[in-house]
């Protein structure tokens, strides 16, 4: 059998026995009716069971019949606010702030409850895209987190004790506060808060404010101090760069303001007939990151070589440094390639590095200087304010605490007992602090050790401001009254420094003074932002004074042949502050496709060396081998995931896992806390380390990963990818392919749609909804998956259920590896992301097989699903070629009247996280416009039909059909790269019509078009700007249809 070009897992690549079985079984298990799985008739007592079931259903029916309808109340307002219509959504501009990160938002509020947030499209910080990241999308759920503290507490013998009155706590603290007061926070970029803090320290002049970021960017801050005389991070402009070189920087996933960068990056990579240009992206890294997966060319190096790589680039560009020689030939070639591209694009290239080593960053600054980036792609006019923590200050604080010279420690949004590498040292010091107060929202690792916890409001409950970049002000206004007895930490600071103003008033006064009037502030709050009209790009004076020293430091090659460890952040969890968010925990990682865990990612080579067989046991049955690593003297047992595209001598472990009980039910004990493995070297936190020893253990550990779920029954690849050169040579390849298909199937008329079928042809007299997804713009970040979850009440099923392939996401992002014949590994790997959702086929195979017509087609081209009609035969899911239908195996939402439906055979009870989602508090996040599904029914993407209906109603009320052009599905709205376009295909003025038939006609294709299901989702082929062979090399594209037939028959 011919080897596949695009593959999702090893089983598929090697076509193993287990994989074949997987393809045959849509569902990986039998009906859970009988425990022993022998089938109904062979069971021990089928007759008695049958009688039991009959008896139960009769009794249930009798009870239901005997019950009277409950009396329901309808309680109107006493005094209805005039601007409010119950049942209609309201939108407020506000701002997401977390650990310094700033994303201007628009929050949707239904009947007083915020239920959805999206980027503010007016803001340059979201690149005017209105997009956001998965974490921002999920942050609305954090508001309803059951682990939030509901009142201020005093910790007595390790137990939280409620303090009923703020006055009481203030009185106690007033008696104890004093001496050397230290305020420890994550980055503070709120102008009014900064003023509160300075007033506070006017009262306590002996104290100081220490900013501490969970993930340190201290290296870049210090390097810029040396090179530009500014301890700041400039703003980057990936859209202005024709050449982008990433050195270990995951700028599309987790590095700095990744959603802003993703928008810019995508702008440089959009390609259409008018403009056959795109930027060139070369990535140097040790692990396969989301950014690396999107790169045109990728070169592998060990983390210890990152300084050497940067120095080699600098030296070849003509920098006055001596670069250490590198051994790897491929890597050397990569450096030459990078240098030649920079040389031919001076002033239009950008080099970014994710290293936290100031020496490396100084070298990178020198490269950017030579490349002419300073003032073209790097701007110093509005530097970023999102990360301001300096490592040496934190180290000093820990030392001071240990020596007992800190009397009072106030902690806001910082959790060093969890995420500081020397957490033990911090805890030791904390014990010596006389008064410690935490303003964190839960009794997390640090707060649990403090004397008092006075929880701060959630951002959706707060007034506030943030300055993500200098002069880019974003405002927060509350979208709901505080749910609990919480208080602004600013109010506490004001109070304790003798100012009885509440922060809300303080904030208003601050801005009224600044803006001149109350109405100006109200206007600013309504807009949510105050930003310069357009970006200005200016250079900063550069000095190479520190370069020589930095070069000698960066050039020192450490480490030999040993195994090196990279500690990375997952796109879903980030630093781990939001670890108690079940949506994020269940979001498949873009690369590994794993949920609910962290693990060690290793290369296939290392797996071979460890004698790990990557067979069906590993891949299809998901029992992952466990390896014991000795890292920095710490012995760590971790399950492994073998990932192609990893450096053979590098392993990667995600931080942000292994939270304590206080962090919440969903976060507790999930994964392993990798922060203690972070190395402090030369005063800086370095997210790399070495493993001195490693051995495979005998046990296995199950990782719930979705890589092997939802397979295409062995059908040919559904992704299409071309190299830029190939595409330029033959831009009509897809068009020809589709013409060919039409000729084959409709030889007389060449009308593929109407004449290549036995089925009747339906008309769509009004709207005909369609979607186009640009694979070139899709970065695989997963924001759409979470946006869909939030919009459509998609349930969380927990790890035990994901293991059984029961995950419910309506929209998954398939990750394909592409390799060339024998070379499946390393830098010769392409990764393609393909969002897969219900294709709303106009000739849908699922509809034909439903015995009760629960799924059927609408006159607007929607594949409709009527949950109340569904009897759960799952024939539709079997017959779906795209595998996008999801079955409710258990009552995940608590919607059923029978409690026993939450039990599932096999795993017994559902995971605690599922029950966390069913709490009354958590359920406040549900979208009231979408039905919550019960056990035993199929569900799937509805094209956000509630939004379509709403848009049509608005258009009818306004008497204006053009209004439906504004409709956006949740995934489209959340996408920061504008990869998704949606609309009415019948409308020739709509974006979707223009994309499909005019602007991007040549790249448009349908997944599995040859099976004539007539999907309403089209894709735009991916173009990779590389000289390597891409896509199917042997030119066998033309026989697609025949190949499909073979696969079928």
């Amino acid at each position, binding site marked *: 059998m011919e080897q596949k070009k695009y593959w999702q897992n090893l089983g598929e690549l090697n076509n193993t026995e287990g994989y074949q079985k997987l393809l045959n079984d849509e569902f990986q298990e039998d009906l859970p009716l009988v425990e022993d799985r022998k089938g109904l008739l062979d069971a021990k007592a089928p007759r008695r069971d049958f009688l039991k079931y009959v008896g139960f259903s009769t009794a249930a029916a009798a009870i*239901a*019949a005997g019950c009277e*309808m409950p*009396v*329901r*109340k*309808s*309680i*109107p*307002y*006493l*005094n*209805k606010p005039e601007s409010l*219509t*119950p*049942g*209609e959504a309201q939108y407020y501009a506000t701002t997401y702030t977390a650990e310094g990160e700033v994303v201007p938002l628009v929050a949707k509020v239904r009947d007083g409850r915020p239920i959805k947030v999206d980027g503010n499209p007016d803001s340059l910080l979201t690149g005017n895209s209105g997009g956001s990241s998965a974490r921002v999308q999920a942050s609305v759920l954090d508001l309803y987190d059951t682990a939030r503290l509901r009142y201020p507490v005093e910790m007595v013998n390790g137990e939280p004790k409620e303090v009923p009155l703020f006055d009481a706590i203030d009185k106690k603290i007033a008696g104890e506060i004093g001496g050397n007061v230290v305020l420890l926070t994550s980055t503070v970029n709120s102008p009014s808060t900064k003023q509160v803090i300075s007033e506070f320290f006017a009262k306590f002049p002996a104290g100081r404010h220490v900013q501490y970021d969970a993930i340190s960017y201290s290296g870049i801050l210090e390097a810029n101090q040396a090179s530009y005389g500014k301890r700041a991070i400039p703003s980057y402009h990936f859209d202005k760069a024709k050449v982008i070189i990433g050195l270990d920087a995951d700028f599309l996933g987790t590095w700095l303001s990744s959603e802003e960068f993703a928008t810019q990056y995508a702008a440089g990579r959009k390609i259409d007939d008018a403009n056959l240009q795109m930027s060139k992206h070369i990535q140097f890294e040790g692990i396969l990151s989301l950014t690396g997966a999107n790169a045109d060319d990728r070169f592998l190096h060990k983390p210890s070589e990152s300084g050497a790589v940067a120095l080699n680039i600098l030296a070849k560009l003509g920098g006055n440094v001596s670069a250490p020689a590198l051994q790897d030939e491929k890597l050397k070639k990569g450096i030459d390639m990078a240098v030649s591209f920079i040389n031919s694009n001076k002033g239009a290239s950008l080099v970014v590095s994710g290293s936290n080593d100031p020496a490396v960053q100084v070298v990178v600054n020198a490269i950017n200087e030579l490349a002419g980036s300073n003032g073209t792609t790097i701007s110093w006019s509005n530097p970023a304010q999102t990360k301001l923590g300096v490592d040496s200050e934190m180290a000093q604080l820990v030392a001071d605490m240990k020596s007992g010279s800190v009397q009072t420690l106030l902690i806001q949004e910082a959790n060093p007992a969890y995420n500081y590498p020397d957490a033990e040292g911090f805890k030791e010091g904390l014990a010596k602090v006389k008064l410690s107060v935490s303003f964190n929202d839960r009794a997390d690792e640090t707060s649990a050790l403090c004397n008092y916890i006075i929880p701060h409001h959630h951002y959706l409950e707060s007034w506030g401001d943030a300055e993500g970049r200098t002069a880019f002000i974003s405002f927060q206004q509350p979208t709901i009254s505080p749910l609990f007895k919480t208080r602004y930490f600013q109010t506490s600071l004001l109070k304790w420094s003798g100012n009885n103003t509440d922060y809300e008033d303080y904030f208003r006064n601050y801005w009224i003074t600044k803006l001149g009037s109350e109405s100006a502030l109200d206007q600013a709050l309504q807009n949510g932002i105050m930003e310069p009209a357009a970006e200005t790009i200016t250079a900063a004076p550069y000095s190479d004074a520190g370069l020589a020293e930095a070069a000698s430091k960066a050039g020192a090659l450490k480490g030999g042949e040993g195994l090196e460890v990279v500690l990375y952040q997952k796109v879903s969890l980030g630093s781990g502050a939001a670890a108690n968010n079940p949506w994020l925990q269940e979001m498949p990682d873009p690369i590994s496709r794993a949920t609910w865990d962290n693990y060690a990612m290793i290369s296939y080579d290392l797996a071979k060396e460890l004698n790990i067989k990557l067979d069906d046991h590993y891949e299809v049955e998901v029992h992952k081998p466990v390896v014991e690593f000795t890292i920095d003297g710490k012995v760590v047992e971790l399950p492994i995931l073998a990932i192609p595209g990893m450096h053979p001598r590098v392993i990667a472990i995600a931080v942000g896992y292994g939270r304590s009980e206080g962090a919440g039910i969903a976060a507790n004990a999930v994964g392993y806390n990798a922060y203690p493995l972070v190395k402090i070297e030369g005063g800086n936190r370095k997210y790399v380390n070495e493993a001195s020893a490693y051995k495979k253990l005998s046990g296995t550990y199950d990782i719930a990963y979705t890589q092997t779920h939802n397979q295409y029954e062995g059908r040919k690849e559904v992704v299409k990818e071309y190299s830029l050169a190939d595409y330029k040579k033959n831009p009509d390849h897809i068009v020809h392919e589709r013409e060919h298909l039409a000729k084959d199937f409709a030889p007389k008329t060449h009308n593929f749609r109407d004449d290549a079928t036995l089925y009747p042809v339906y*008309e769509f*007299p*009004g*709207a005909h909804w369609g979607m186009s997804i640009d694979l070139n713009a899709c970065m695989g970040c997963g924001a759409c998956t979470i946006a869909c979850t939030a919009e459509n009440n998609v349930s969380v099923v927990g790890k035990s259920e994901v293991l059984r392939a029961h995950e419910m996401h309506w929209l998954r992002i398939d990750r394909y590896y592409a390799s060339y014949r024998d070379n499946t590994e390393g830098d010769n790997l392409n990764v393609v992301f393909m969002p897969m959702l219900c294709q709303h086929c106009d000739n849908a195979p699922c509809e034909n097989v439903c015995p009760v017509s629960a799924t*059927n087609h*609408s*006159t*607007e081209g*929607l594949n*409709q*699903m*009527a*949950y*109340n*009609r569904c009897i759960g035969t799952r024939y539709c899911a079997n017959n779906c070629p795209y595998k996008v239908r999801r079955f409710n195996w258990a009552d995940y939402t608590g919607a059923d009247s029978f409690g026993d439906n939450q039990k599932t055979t096999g795993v017994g009870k559902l995971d605690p996280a599922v029950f966390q989602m069913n709490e009354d508090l958590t359920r406040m996040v549900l979208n009231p*416009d*979408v*039905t919550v599904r019960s056990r035993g029914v199929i569900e799937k993407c*509805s094209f956000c*039909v*509630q939004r379509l*209906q709403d848009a*049509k*109603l608005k*258009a*009818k*009320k306004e*008497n*204006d*059909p053009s209004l439906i052009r504004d409709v956006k599905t949740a995934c489209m709205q959340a996408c920061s790269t504008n990869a998704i376009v949606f609309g*009415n295909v*019948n*409308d020739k003025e709509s974006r979707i019509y223009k994309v499909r038939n005019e602007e991007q006609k040549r790249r448009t294709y349908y997944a599995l078009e040859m099976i004539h299901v007539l999907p309403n989702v089209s894709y735009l082929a991916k173009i990779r700007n590389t000289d390597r062979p891409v896509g199917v090399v042997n030119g066998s594209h033309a026989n697609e249809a025949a190949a499909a037939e073979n696969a079928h028959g």
Partner: protein
Amino acid sequence: MSYRSTVKAILFRLSIVVFSCFFVVAVASAQEGRAIFNQKCATCHALDKKVVGPPLSGFESKGPWSDRQKLYEWVRNPFAFREKDAYVQNLIKEYNGVVMTGNADLTDAQIDAIVDYINNPPVAKKPDTPGEQKVPESDNTLLFGLLTLILAVIALTLLQVNSNLRKMSDDKEGIPAQEPVPFYRNKMYIALTIIALFVLGGYLTIQGAVGLGRQTNYEPEQPIYYSHKVHAGINQISCLYCHTGAQQGKQALIPSVNVCMNCHMAVNEYTKGPDLYKADGSQVNGTAEIKKLYEYAGWDEATQSYTGKGKPIEWVRIHNLPDHVYFNHSQHVVVGEQQCQTCHGNITEMDEVKQFSDLSMGWCINCHRTTKVQFDNKFYSIYEKFHEDIRNKKIDSVTVEMIGGLECQKCHY
């Protein structure tokens, strides 16, 4: 524009002109005036007592109001008029500086009608009986039942006659007669009876099952006896005055207490309307019900001010749709231009409201099958094919069904 539609348009305009003339001449009566008065003025004015504004009975004898032109000016723009009239300025002072809200949209004729009403308020008459004289509806059930019974007896007799005749002929031909079987042991009769009982039982069971959860004619007792007949019927208050949501969104909305108080600050007793009776026949004291409202609103009648101790009214919900049904009032009222009465029945005749329709899916579907879409709404211009069919006279109208009104995801998602 085609010839046909031009003619249509002309006819339409002509009819408007004719109608408006009719309006000015004939409708400027006290009757019409009362409706406008209730809508525009009653919030602040009563005829014979001081409310937010002064009483209006005999107002023409005071101040400048004998001059109708001045009155028009004042009603449409009180703020401008205030500047040039001393009487009005004094009046405003007397009423703590509150100036009347302007009604720029009222025509001269309408203001005249209001004045007509104020001068000649219709004398409220009390009906003698609580209910109305009901015309007995013709009910044929009894007749049909009797007919069926007679036919059944005839059939039985005939059967008996038939068997007797056969017996006689058998006797004649010498065939030995079988032992006669009494009808209650006749297998044929027993089988027929069983089948009949089975069919009847099945029918009743299915009807019962289908009716589970449906509450037609549901008329619960409410915390306050609120009569739609008095408000919407006799006083002709527009439905949308209270149920504001019907035009804006999903729910029609039960009005909040402050909406009730807009009028009931002035209307503090029930004296003029007909006697009110509950469903069980007991009489209701309307004034006492208004006092209940004051209790909820926290309104102190003595000081004419709110005490701040109000609480919302817990009405019993009558119209319940299952959670998996999406229904939007504004779609039906604004876009579909449906009357409230279509679904809610003759609400202006109901004292306490009861559920008129069964709100079942079949009921929705049947209406969607027959109801015509307001196809002149520009939104529907996207249905080019139907417009063409109308032009070509293939169809004369478009029903809700034709634009997908029967599809699952119009209401379930």
